[in-house]
């Protein structure tokens, strides 16, 4: 059961590590209005946001091998969650970019900063602070969507619980324990968010 919880945590963390930057990339493509690509991203985000995680997991796990790409359940799981969360993260980053004051960009340009450098030094340090609460709440949603991966054979917390239930003919106790472990995982993320926010707040009031 604890092994299952570790798998759930591992898969979630990998998907967050990949999905948050990928979402930022997608958001920048839309923000810069890159021709064609921008429309493609908009369609991708809209479609993925409407798709249940379980349907996406089944599509990736069963359809990619027909194209000759063989995936282990673990890879398919990380891929599913990354695709899913990047669409939501794109919208979060995009909202922060849209709200970003244009004067600051003009000022950066006036100081002769290259766009890339301006983004790294001026835009990014500000938008990640405004996006953080929304990003963390998306992370908790990701954990809550992760039991979908049990259908593609990944032995995560949910599948571990149902295996124990099947072996002991008492399905209820393992599911109760699993539920409590999920609550702990979600609360851990919320606690980290609170901590980071307090640090940021302290930094800002010190500055």
């Amino acid at each position, binding site marked *: 059961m604890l092994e299952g919880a570790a798998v759930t945590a591992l898969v979630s963390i990998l998907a967050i590590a990949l999905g948050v930057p990928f979402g930022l990339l997608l958001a920048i493509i839309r923000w810069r209005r890159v021709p064609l690509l921008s429309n493609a991203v908009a369609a991708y985000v809209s479609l993925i946001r*409407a798709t249940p995680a379980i*349907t996406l997991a*089944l599509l990736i796990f069963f359809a990619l091998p027909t194209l000759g790409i063989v995936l282990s359940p673990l890879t398919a799981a990380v891929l599913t969650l990354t695709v899913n969360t990047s669409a939501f993260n794109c919208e979060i980053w995009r909202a922060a970019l849209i709200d970003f004051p244009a004067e600051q960009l003009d000022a950066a340009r006036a100081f002769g900063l290259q766009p890339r450098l301006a983004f790294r030094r001026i835009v990014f340090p500000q938008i990640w602070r405004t996006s953080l609460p929304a990003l963390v709440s998306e992370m908790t949603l990701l954990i809550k969507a992760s*039991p979908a991966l049990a259908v593609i054979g990944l032995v995560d917390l949910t599948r571990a619980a149902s295996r124990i239930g099947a072996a002991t003919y008492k399905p*209820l106790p393992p599911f109760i324990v699993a*539920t409590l472990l999920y609550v702990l995982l*979600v609360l851990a993320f919320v606690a980290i968010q609170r901590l980071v926010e307090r640090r940021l707040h302290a930094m800002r009031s010190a500055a």
Partner: protein
Amino acid sequence: MTNDFLTVFRHFDQFLGGLWNTLWLAGATLVFASILGCGIAALMLARQRSIRKLVAFLVDGMRCIPFLLLAYLVYYGLPELGLQFDSWTCGVSALVLYHSAYVAEIVRGAWTSLAREQINAGKAFGFHGYKLFRRIILPQLFFASAPVVGNQTVQIVKDTAFLMIITVPELTFVASSIQATYFVPFASFMVAMLLYWVVTLVIEAGVRRVEVSASLRRAA
């Protein structure tokens, strides 16, 4: 690949059946969860501190649980209590129970941000009790929470997919069984995803219409 899609379209009536079941589940959940959610929200605003605390704790707890786990708890838990239900009833009760916690939080948020002056003005004009609620409070709650309830409805539609695991024949279940019979994974799940997409776009369009009529009301 083209043949795969032809296979799927030959069984499109089954997909429509699954879609119908998905819509039915989501619709029933929206109605019952709204009613139950309003009741829970009222308890969260109750005068007694102990009731407020207890209900808030339960709502927060529910919002930390993945839906599939709740579905399993209901599916395996009710028989332990001596209640035998089919997978449909279990599915709908799990959906309603789960989403009523979210709806309660939405309604509570909208309620607390409702301007006090409005209610006082309503009372000054002689509205009270049911009429005050029906004429002054409910319309504002409805328009204030419409966008969030729209998002929640999309979430409900997506959560119905989990019920395939307890063998409720909704859209993903149908897609999965077609793919298992004819081995057409891409075509079958892609069609299911596109159908979910259409449903979501329709819900979002509906929310936009409510927002337009809300701004028209404000202008009038």
